[in-house]
């Protein structure tokens, strides 16, 4: 078990309210975003997250630390969201036919005809000014559910691919395809946002 988890568990088990509140502060909102990718409404997502917190508390005594506390928490969430949600179709395999960059942007030999426009500095400036974060949130929310779940866990939460596979019960290969599509779509949205701004 990780040292930070061991200490946190001790505090949670021994009645330290602040330890619980700080855990909620870290993960309540991220869990809401993830739950929303499985269930049809915000209200249902909130219910699922509430249930998850209760399940965490009830499971504390039995937690053995085979995964990190965070991975365990998100697994509880995903299991509950899957039982509740109807949106996700687990049996559908991850299809891989469509290119992530529109083929009209390449010439007949496969070289860029309409190359990527530069936007990195513009995005940095706008993020700094506090005017980009809510747009990025909105774009992530527009991603197809499974891509959204992977992007939220990998790139927003910073989990490793192993952790994401464990939380979402995905193979490494499927996780990577979903990540590739989600990230590529977001890159395109950044480019669209800043196209012609220069």
């Amino acid at each position, binding site marked *: 078990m990780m040292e930070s988890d061991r200490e946190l568990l001790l505090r949670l088990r021994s009645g330290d309210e602040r330890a619980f509140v700080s855990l909620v502060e870290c993960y309540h909102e991220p869990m809401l975003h993830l739950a929303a990718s499985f269930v049809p409404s915000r209200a249902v997502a909130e219910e699922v997250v509430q249930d998850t917190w209760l399940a965490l508390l009830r499971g504390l005594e039995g937690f053995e630390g085979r995964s990190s506390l965070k991975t365990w928490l998100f697994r509880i969430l995903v299991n509950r969201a899957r039982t509740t949600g109807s949106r996700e179709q687990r049996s559908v395999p991850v299809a891989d036919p469509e290119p992530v960059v529109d083929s009209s942007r390449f010439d007949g030999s496969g070289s860029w005809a309409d190359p990527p426009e530069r936007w*990195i500095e513009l995005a940095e400036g706008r993020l700094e000014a506090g005017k980009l974060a809510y747009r990025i949130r909105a774009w992530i929310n527009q991603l197809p559910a499974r891509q959204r779940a992977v992007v939220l866990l990998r*790139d927003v939460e910073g989990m490793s691919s192993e952790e994401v596979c464990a939380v979402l019960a995905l193979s490494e290969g499927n996780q990577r395809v979903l990540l590739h599509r989600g*990230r590529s779509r977001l890159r395109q949205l950044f480019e669209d946002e800043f196209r012609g701004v220069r």
Partner: protein
Amino acid sequence: MRLLLRRDLVCQQAVELVTEYLEGTLSRSARRRFEAHLAGCPHCTEYLAQMRETISLTGRLEPEDLTSQMRDEFVDLYRRWRSEQQ
């Protein structure tokens, strides 16, 4: 003009390999081909930089603070659980 070798990547293929490249899951030869393509292609180099920037930007999103009402609700939840324990 250099002949296009069968093993050379074109841009349209390179953009599909970006995630595998960043994840470190390309074979050594595929990685070499990818890097050789980048070395001669400023557009794909920019594309890769933009994918890295996309990851970096999403990684800087932060959860909003809990409202004081929610904080109180969670303290209540925790206290109820504690009292069940005893």
